[in-house]
């Protein structure tokens, strides 16, 4: 650990020294790290959907692992050479399988995954209609009169709900 620490301190020291040297040059508008920011935006968008296989659950865009950096560079090269996003995704899945995609492809094995939420909603909707059918408001009984009515209104209205409508 101390070796690493010393290494780190040397880098810092060198950094401090050389930033001083650089100040002697003319200050300017900082250039983008990426040679082509528009391309880089596409790289980031695509790599955000690819999984870093050696990480605990991070995308290639976010990870600093060696393999992630390698794959990000591959993506950049391929986008630059004119390949489409679709082709690059195919390239990755050919080598690493569907596991590398954070957006699961739509195929037979993922049918339940993609249609599941809609299915849940349908089941929920069905249960909802069943509950409603069993709970229609009863035909109104004889209206409450006089002092009872005042008491009822007080009790029902107390929690800030609107006063019950008289029928």
């Amino acid at each position: 650990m101390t070796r690493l620490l010393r290494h780190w301190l040397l880098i810092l020291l060198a950094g401090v020294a050389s930033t001083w040297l650089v100040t002697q040059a003319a200050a300017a508008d900082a250039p983008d790290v990426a040679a082509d920011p528009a391309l880089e935006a596409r790289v980031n968008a695509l790599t955000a959907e690819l999984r870093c296989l050696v990480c605990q659950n991070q995308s290639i865009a976010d990870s600093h692992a060696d393999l992630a950096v390698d794959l990000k560079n591959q993506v950049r090269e391929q986008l630059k050479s004119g390949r489409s996003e679709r082709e690059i995704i195919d390239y990755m899945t050919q080598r690493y399988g569907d596991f590398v995609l954070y957006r699961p492809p739509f195929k037979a094995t993922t049918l339940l995954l993609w249609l599941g939420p809609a299915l849940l909603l349908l089941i929920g909707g069905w249960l909802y209609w069943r509950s409603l059918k069993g709970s229609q408001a009863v035909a109104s009984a004889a209206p409450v009169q006089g002092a009872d009515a005042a008491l009822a209104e007080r009790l029902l209205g107390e929690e800030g709900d609107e006063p019950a409508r008289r029928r």
Partner: protein
Amino acid sequence: MIPELGHFALVLALFVSLALAVLPIVGAARNDAAWMALARPATQALFGAIAVAFFCLMASFVNNDFSVVNVATNSNSELPLPYRIAATWGSHEGSMLLWVFMLSGWACAVSLLSKRLPLPMVARVLGVMGFVSVGFLLFILLTSNPFQRLLPPAPDGRDLNPLLQDPGMVIHPPMLYMGYVGFAVAFAFAVAALLSGRFDAAWARWSRPWTTAAWVFLTIGIALGSWWAYYELGWGGWWFWDPVENASFMPWLAGTALIHSLAVAEKRGAFKAWTVLLAIAAFSLSLLGTFLVRSGVLTSVHAFATDPTRGSFILIFLAIVIGGSLALFGWRASQVGFAGRFDKLSRESLLLANNVLLVAACGAVMLGTLYPLALDAFGLGKLSVGAPYFEAVFVPLMAPVVLLMGVGPLARWKQATVAELAGRLKWPALASVVAALALPLAAGRFSPMVALGLLLAAWVFTTSLVLVLQRARPSFAQLRRQPRSFWGMVVAHVGVGLFIVGVTMVRGYETERDVKMGVGDSVPVGGYRFTFRGVQEVQGPNYVAGRGTLDVQSEGGGAVFQMFPEKRMYKVQGMPMTEAAIRSGLTRDLYVSLGEMLPDGTWTVRVYHKPFVDWIWGGAFIMAFGGLLALSDRRYRVAVKAVELPPPLAAEPPTAGKRPQQQPAAT
């Protein structure tokens, strides 16, 4: 000595919890007052014992006792005191002890604040919580003992993970666990009701404040976790749909459905079976979360060191607790009875629709989280389900919930009419559509997603305004008569609206520049100019860092200030960490992250302008505040005088509720 004391206290706690789990519940079944009366003192003794254990562990950390394995693996003599204290719960073993400490704390609170509950109910509720404690204490003592000794003692510790050495990480787990564990109270009330076969409105009334409190803590816990990720991880992400994050989000969704369901159960006596099921589900999802984080079944950045033996134990525990309560539900739910009639269009039906959507959303999150596991288990291949899936699926489910949020409170109980609602909603609808179309254009760029987000947020704000104005009739003085539960609802819903604004604006209008900076170089971002002034070496208590300095000037003149992003190297673990510099404001965050030094002496720097990002967590905290307001409602604080009832009604003796029962409609 102290670790042994702690260990002994845990064993003692186990025996007390065994007694608590068995005697009062048997006593309630046999109507044995003596056994039922054991519940409260046993609960308090349990809390005392676990508290002793918890503070013994904390003392070991504070005193740098490296003869305790847990301290040696998670602390260091140079670790600052607050983090040594937080390291108590920084490991799997310590966090389980925190879990059980909070569980006994909630149980103790229930034992102290339940004077008006009938004894059989108290006995059952505390007994169930005791039963859950037994499981956790056994788990700790058999597989995750925090007091294991290391002999000979280590000369120094391995230090707390640098990612955890941060104030946010200190309070995020306790808040989160308070939420998870708090749902155990609602669960206990539900199981107690199933055991007794009685589901009068008193049960819903009693569960409600406890459930709301748990929900408040969980909301805060999740918000803190998200905020922490934002400022700590260095690139400004704040939610990743990681399995462990989902594991905390699912109980939140179920818990939100639960508090709305309890409102109906309490006021109208309807939905009781659903409410009981939701109460069981919310806590079950908490337990499921515990399993997922610690068993190694799912891959996550948050997972503790995984161990399948521990996983098996938790799974068996889950099977007993959840399986048992669901079996009980199957057996007894038909006795819950159905009460309360309501129209197809009424506040009840709208709340029911709201709950269906929330539960569907919860189910969708669960589906996405567990699908890779399911596919692998069936040998159908390996899959990853990440943010793209969840976002595609979640937003369509939640948008209707937000729409209902505006309509529900305006609808009458039992029977509402379309005409009346339409009349009240036409102005909010118009205002929302206008906002959705006009605001994005004003901000510079139109996008459908931004429009949708702003539509939903505007809808929430305008319908809340209509609701408040409606109660302000005939004069504004009427507003003072509204109970805090009303204001709690309004504030919580407004919080949701603020949250939506934050998410929408940041997603839609965030800008970023990733640049190489030499001293004197500058870059314009989001209406500010950032000028790099170099990097200096800085010593921290247990790290060494390169601290960058940037002069920032707002381009309209105005503000001038400095920002100091850091690149830290923690000495013991040798782990490099990025500490982003963040300048927060009401309408935007400026976020600067120091990258690395390039061979020519320049540094890579990332500068972000994030509009309205703090509204994300601000909105969440306001939601929680709304919950707190609802909790502080008069009826939970003040003993209500018995109402003078005319003779026919007085024949029904008042039960343990704080006021005479509303008669549930006969089934």
